[in-house]
């Protein structure tokens, strides 16, 4: 799989400490991500645990999000180890999260599943963007541009995590690079 270095789309802006219960509340953990229709269903519930008044990431009654990029503050994805969290964001159509920092297990699960790029921002960006702004992330240049304001911000490089996500996750990467045999 070849991945483009650019991700363009609308941003959905959040604050600090967005935990996995907000990303996918526990009542939906009866869904099994490896069952295709339940994977889709998880996407439709992505970020449904946000406090009321913060808007919907996935519009009611729909399966996909109009936002390709989640933009957040510190410690994104804290809490549970549920892999359902990056999966829900990815299944909804999210391509990347840009946050000041990540909880460890969430970051690792993003890479292992290849569902979305967890990109770190060295500065706080949540005040520089509004939900609905059009933005472009360039993974080669390590930057995000707010296409409404025209302002460009540096991002930290994904390093070794990027080729794993480009490949589509841990297993796909391990096959591509010959770490494990090709056919199961």
């Amino acid at each position, binding site marked *: 799989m070849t991945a483009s270095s650019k991700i363009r789309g609308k941003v959905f802006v959040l604050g600090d400490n967005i935990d996995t219960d907000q990303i996918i509340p526990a009542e939906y953990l009866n869904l099994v991500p*490896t069952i295709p229709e339940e994977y889709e269903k998880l996407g439709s519930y992505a970020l449904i645990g946000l*406090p009321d008044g913060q808007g919907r990431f996935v519009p009611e009654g729909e399966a996909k999000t109009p936002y390709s990029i989640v933009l957040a503050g510190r*410690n994104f994805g804290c*809490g549970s*180890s549920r*892999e359902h969290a990056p999966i829900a964001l990815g299944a909804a159509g999210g391509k990347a999260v840009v946050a000041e920092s990540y909880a*460890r297990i969430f970051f690792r699960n993003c890479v*292992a*599943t290849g569902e979305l790029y967890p990109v770190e921002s060295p500065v706080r960006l949540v005040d520089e963007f509004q939900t609905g702004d059009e933005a472009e992330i360039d993974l080669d240049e390590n930057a995000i541009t707010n296409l409404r304001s025209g302002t460009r911000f540096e991002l930290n490089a994904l390093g070794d995590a990027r080729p794993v996500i480009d490949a589509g996750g841990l297993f796909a990467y391990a096959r591509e690079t010959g770490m494990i045999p090709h056919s199961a």
Partner: protein
Amino acid sequence: MPMTMTEKILARASGRTEVGPGDNVWVNVDTLMTHDVCGPGTIGIFKREFGKNAKVWDPEKVVIIPDHYIFTSDDKCHRNVDILREFVREQGIPNYYDVGTKDYKGVCHVALAQEGHTRPGEVLFGTDSHTCMAGAFNQFATGIGNTDAAFILGTGKLLVKVPPTMRFDFDGEFPPYVMAKDVILHVIGDIGVAGATYKAMEFGGDAIKRLTMEERMTVCNMVIEGGGKNGVIDADETTFEYVRARTQKPFEPVVGDPGAAHVFAKRYDASTIEPTVARPHSPDNKARARELGDVRVTRAYIGSCTGGKITDFINAAEIMRGRRVAVDTFLVPATTEIAEGLRTEKVGGETLHAIFEAAGCKLSADASCAACLGGPKDTFGRINGPEVCISTTNRNFPGRMGSKEGQVYLASPYTVAASAVTGRITDPREFLQ
């Protein structure tokens, strides 16, 4: 170079003489634990990636403990347990604790310990963030996602980055009204919910040595609430006595080297720790219980891996004996062994069960995770509206126990019991003097 406990465990598990923070090492896994919420997805990935006839690397080292969504009418939850059951049969996994049988245990982290699966010096991974609880047994134990767990199922190995270690020492003695829950809420309040991200949290000092195994488990359970990768405590006679009573398997504890480097170190005078509460909606939103006397609660909850062990109920009973609760008070034993203990353990000559019944508590006979994480709508004790709950559980994120309208205060079993009796947040010293 001198090594910390965590470094020594990871060095041994990766076949090296020495490792240091930042090293990426492949470790051999001693135990992989999964449950009904993440097991089916893990099994799905294992089959997809290793083939539908693939065999797990070592059936003896896989432990499957259904515990999350057991006592519910939700069909998918039952289907998920069926997937576990089928996998266990096909793979010949001996350590499976099936729902609806005498083998059923309840909350995985407590059951792992009670069944002898937590052994000093070993490496344990689990598809649950509170797997770090087993660090109390001088293990490297941490939570992982389904994909990593599926990789372990097929290979018995995982790539781990060696974390730097933070050291927390408690000198002297904790006051009798202070529980391990107060200690860890105090620490998380000090370092913040991301204060230990990517790091190991090592606990020591005379006051920690005096804690029972169950209390040490409470401390390590909540390192994830500070962002920690793992928690770890020295093994001693308390550890050996607990473990040897539950398993014949040999084990080899590790001792941190004198002079090992810590990226952070803090010493506490244990006698200064007070009953501590985390206010909504974050485990680091610390306050002293005595400062929150104006906060009225509408319910109380005692349960979960963190707060539903037998000593938690014994402590709650010390306060509730001869008193009535003022608000709905839900009690959920973490495991079936603890549920049994409620009928045999006594405080002041009365069984815990009798004390809680007389106090007017709502006591679940079924051991499970229950409402700690909300769960299906019909879960016992779930918050389904604008409740203000004081709870012995480990997380109080928005909507964690069910409804987003709920507010959850985290506290020790002493503080929760005292607050249940008065209907407002109450320092247990009001009852324990």
